[in-house]
């Protein structure tokens, strides 16, 4: 009987962790601009261009990419379990739409506000991510209210209200796009396509903490997530209180998604693709799937951002385009495969 054991858990995660560290290192050294590593390292904390490229321009965004890639992948895994659908993704809940809208409103009305906390060394913190997070919270509350019946969150209602909310928000965003000037419109695209561009270690640190805590909590629910995929009734028979699990997982993942989108805009397909690929490689046991997807998501987004920086140098592509470019065809391929499988072919 081939089931999850300690050895597999350790092996898979160790390999992925090693790959993650290597990828992060490689992505910090790669870019459209040539980096003189020896210069950078010898003058690490002085105002040397190579050092600044390494430490201030690249490293924060690589670290952010790892956190957000991991967070998106982990949220994708749990949302697929929650909605009972292997094709669910973080974008479906409406939370990311709400965050985008909040961010866009922030850009339009308060583009230059900066939070008073910020020292030059750690980078600037703009008010806009907070506005975005507020939007995320409001969306989350809305979807929650519309889907909660007798203490249970029905997957059908979650999906439906998420989709409707996204459509509504898309309409509002289009309206806003039509009333801003041409130059603001460029900024709006950031929210819709995503960017990991950041120099603020404070933001990166905060997001890391947030996502790590969220991820660890979700990981601890691994067994329950396995059980909930059997159906609400079956999960109950096996000892899980589905209502409580659904509510907690929904709120945890919504908060995580809201935070991530607030900082980097909407980066799609990571939450859909990575869980699926990992499922194919290592199975559906969430106790392994969660950490493996988390690590794999970090690897994927790290590289996606590197491509985003290099592909059309000196211009930087929105990273959401790179992930969509690889994710779109993959999604179609998945659908095709799922279709064949469900037909028993």
């Amino acid at each position, binding site marked *: *009987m*081939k*089931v*999850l*054991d*300690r050895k597999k*858990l350790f092996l898979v995660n160790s390999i992925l962790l090693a790959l993650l560290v290597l990828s992060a290192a490689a992505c910090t050294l790669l870019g459209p601009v040539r980096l003189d590593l020896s210069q950078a390292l010898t003058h690490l904390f002085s105002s040397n261009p190579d050092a600044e490229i390494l430490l201030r321009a690249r490293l924060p965004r690589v670290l952010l990419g790892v956190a957000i890639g991991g967070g998106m992948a982990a949220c994708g895994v749990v949302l*697929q*379990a929650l909605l*009972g*659908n*292997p094709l669910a993704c973080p974008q479906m809940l409406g939370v990311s739409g709400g965050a985008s809208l909040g961010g866009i409103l922030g850009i339009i009305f308060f583009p230059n506000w900066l939070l008073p906390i910020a020292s030059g060394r750690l980078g600037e913190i703009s008010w806009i991510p907070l506005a975005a997070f507020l939007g995320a919270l409001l969306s989350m509350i809305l979807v929650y209210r519309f889907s909660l019946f007798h203490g249970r969150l029905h997957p059908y209602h979650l999906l439906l209200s998420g989709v409707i909310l996204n459509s509504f928000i898309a309409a509002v965003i289009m309206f806003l796009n039509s009333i801003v000037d041409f130059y603001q419109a460029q900024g709006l695209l950031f929210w819709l396509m995503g960017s990991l561009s950041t120099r603020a270690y404070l933001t990166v640190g905060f997001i890391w903490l947030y996502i790590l805590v969220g991820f660890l909590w979700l990981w*601890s*629910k*691994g*067994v*329950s997530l*396995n*059980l909930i*995929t*059997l*159906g609400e*009734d*079956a999960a*109950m*028979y*096996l*000892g*899980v*209180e589905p209502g409580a699990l659904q509510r907690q997982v929904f709120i945890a993942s919504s908060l995580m998604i809201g935070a991530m989108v607030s900082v980097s805009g909407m980066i799609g397909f990571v939450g859909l693709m990575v869980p699926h690929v990992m*499922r194919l490689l290592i*199975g*559906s*046991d969430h*106790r392994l799937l969660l950490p493996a997807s988390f690590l794999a998501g970090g690897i994927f987004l790290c590289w996606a951002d590197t491509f985003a920086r290099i592909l059309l140098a000196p211009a930087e592509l929105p990273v959401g385009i790179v992930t969509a470019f690889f994710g779109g065809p993959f999604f179609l391929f998945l659908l095709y495969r799922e279709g064949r*499988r469900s037909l028993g072919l």
Partner: protein
Amino acid sequence: MNAIHTHNLTFGYKNRPVLHGVSLSVAGGEMLAILGPNGSGKTTLLKIFSGVLRGQGELKIKGKNIESYSRRELSQFFAVVQQEARVNFPYSAAEIVLMARASYHSPLTLENRHDLEVARTSMDLTDSLAFADRYLHELSGGEKQRVMIARALAQEPEILLLDEPSAFLDLRHQIQMFELLSRLNRERRLTIVAALHDLNLAALFFPRLVMLCNGRIHRDGAPGEVLTEKTIQDVYGIRVRIEHDSATKKPQLFIRPSVS
């Protein structure tokens, strides 16, 4: 102390009453089948027993009110085999069966050797060990059902509820399953309550039958008392002929399709 005891159980949806004043006691180690036409409330009754639905009236499991148990506690002695197993994700049969052991270890630990042993034994009992590592969605309806029964057994339950467990099984596997249940009932004093469609098989394997009709208990007793031509006429509205099989001494139905 009864395994299951309910008194004056009532349940209904908004405009639709389903169960009216059902009173029933199931002793520990008893094996009984719940019969009745569609809509008579069999599945609802089982769902209330297993805690999925909440009805009005008294319901005690092992002497304590069902609400006083947490789901985890309940799952350690109470197992349910559902009518249909639908799994949206690719799990192997072995993984599915092992999930039954969730309430026996902390969420932060993996299954241990004992868990694996129990799972293996359960699958062996239901003749499903051969496809332990195959994906559930690749199995036939009958094979899936046997895996589900194995999962229920892996919970090491004292009480086992089954909702139409033989729905997808061929005759041979049906017989095997009922014989297994009888054996477990005898050897382990496993309390078994099964909702069944097949009156003949119920009569053969279950010493006690409870016939529901329109949400009420119509008859409750040994097969000979419950399966009478009059009862079948009253409850199902069809004419049958009952004969007692000389070998098994149990009543068996012969169907007489209506002539008029």
